[in-house]
């Protein structure tokens, strides 16, 4: 995971509420044993027509979405299964941030652990973002705000530890491992009590 302080990109908008992880990456692609290569199947059944050609009506297939790394999504994005394949697929498809008024817990956890910014903004900011597809945004991870070139600016909450991991580009495993002594003590205390 690379350190991530700031991200600047135009947005693509998928306004549907409750976009679940089956829509992000259908289960038939979960037989992989790798983390990579899922991007071509991101939003598969939405993105391609029956004959396998790109669906021209799907937002991410439109010319103006070319190179967009920020996805603005409807309420409760990422609900459903715990498959980490969902953030893997989005990252592999070039999406580096998802902004919504609500993001499902497990998806958000998985996303942040992979350096995919899963950011919840206030309802009013969310409405503005939905109404301004293609706007260029800068997301500042360190300071916790999203800003457009003409001065729209929204703050967002981010768990301080997740922020630290994003800024440093570290997986939290190292942090747990530093507490090896405490883990051992916990196990011994329990054994003694049993």
């Amino acid at each position, binding site marked *: 995971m690379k350190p991530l302080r700031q991200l600047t990109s135009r947005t693509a908008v998928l306004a549907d509420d*409750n976009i679940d992880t089956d829509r992000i990456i259908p289960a038939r692609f*979960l037989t992989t044993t790798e983390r990579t290569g899922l991007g071509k199947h991101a939003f598969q059944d939405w993105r391609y027509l029956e004959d396998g050609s790109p669906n021209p009506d799907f937002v991410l297939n439109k010319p103006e979405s070319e190179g967009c790394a920020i996805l603005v999504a409807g309420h409760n994005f990422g609900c459903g299964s*715990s498959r*980490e394949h969902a953030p893997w697929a989005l990252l592999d498809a070039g999406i580096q941030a998802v902004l919504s008024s609500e993001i499902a817990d497990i998806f958000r956890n998985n996303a942040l652990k992979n350096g995919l910014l899963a950011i919840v903004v206030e309802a009013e900011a969310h409405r503005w973002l939905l109404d301004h597809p293609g706007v260029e945004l800068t997301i500042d991870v360190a300071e916790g705000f999203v800003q457009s070139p003409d001065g729209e600016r929204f703050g967002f909450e981010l768990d*301080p530890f997740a922020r630290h991991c994003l800024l440093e580009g570290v997986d939290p495993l190292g942090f747990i491992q530093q507490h090896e002594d405490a883990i051992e003590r916990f196990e011994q205390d329990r054994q003694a009590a049993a």
Partner: protein
Amino acid sequence: MTAPRTLFEKVWNAHEVCAQSAEHPAILYIDLHLVHEVTSPQAFAQLRQRGIGVRRPERTLATLDHSTPTLPPDAAGKRQYVTEAAEAQVHQLEANCKEFGVTLHGWDSDARGIVHVMGPELGATQPGMTIVCGDSHTATHGAFGGLAFGIGTTEVGHVLATQCLLQSKPKTFAIHVDGHLRPGVSAKDLILHIIGKIGVDGGTGYVLEYRGSAIEALSMEQRMTLCNMSIEAGARAGMVAPDEVTFQWLKGRPLAPSGAAWDRAVDEWKQLVTDPDATYDREVHIDANAVGPTVSYGTHPGMVTALDAALPDATTDDQRRAMKYMNLTPGQAMTGTRVDVVFVGSCTNGRLSDLRDAARVLKGRRVARGVRMLVVPGSEAVRREAEAEGLHQVFLQAGAEWRAPGCSMCIAMNGDIGQPGQLVVSTSNRNFEGRQGKGVRTVLASPATAAASAVAGRVADPTDYQTGVAA
């Protein structure tokens, strides 16, 4: 004196290796880590890459369920995997378990089953435990009064390596259910009703505790059905306080304590109740008497309706899209909607009592012409018990298919899949677009409603089919 605590807080506190602070989440000790083939290969690869082993193999239990075929091997004895990738994934877990010393209930085990059916059957799932699995339906195990939730693959790696997980403390949400469920109304109807009430994201950020007289009256299997779908309301975990029903169910299971250790365990488990003055962050009250047979009509589990009620007007884009996808019209009732496929099984409703509910309706009746029905037991143990009771004969005589255990059509990644446009009445947990195959329309229902619908060829009310007919 300690402040009054909820059931959740008691379990959480007992597992804090390191309490939450302003700088970091809590480090939580995990008692039981369940593993399956789909969400673990990348985690084992990470351990291999870093040169670390599994810290507590004895607290780790693996099985094969998602990618596994439910049809028997062919004449040459070859298993009928849907793709080479599915087969490779299964072999990868077999190899990983061997390399890292993890117990795997694989093809040769008579305990193999859907991970959330198998864990409780073995007695591995116990009150007061923290239980995780790379699977969102891990919530199931909360039925025993533990804290059980789904995690991603990176976290699977954390638990394999350290037996711990970094977790921010969730809020608590009490779902009080009082009164009595009417005859023929199941835990599945109740949980669909609850999700309809609180919404598909109503539980996000919370751990649910189901409580009240109607919950105490539920069997263990019904409690598992209830807790299983907590995630469908956005809650990572659902819990029920353990009681005599729990203890009786667990006693004598292979991994449950025995002898003096059993008595000590029960004494401890009895403490796992919410203290009288403890408070929750949120509460709702549900009247069990008001719950009838309930099904989903839309494309997420919050879009539910009483079977015979008129479907609501589509007032949001979400609902309009769902109605269009499902090919339904506001004002119509779900009863009478034509059915193509019926699926009975899954970690929600693949246990013995679920199969009995379906068999009671099917006994002496036939699956309607043109309808395909799959009955998939949740585990090898369920298969054995069902066959010992002759339930499989009821299904086969009715014209249904009787399969080998696995997740099957719930996630539709093993080849058990619907065709575009088909309507599937399913006892599983998710009715998302494409969940059971591209373009497939899923109606979530109880086993009894599913079986009644198979007989009628249309979504049907099981209370019309409760009396068996002579074979």
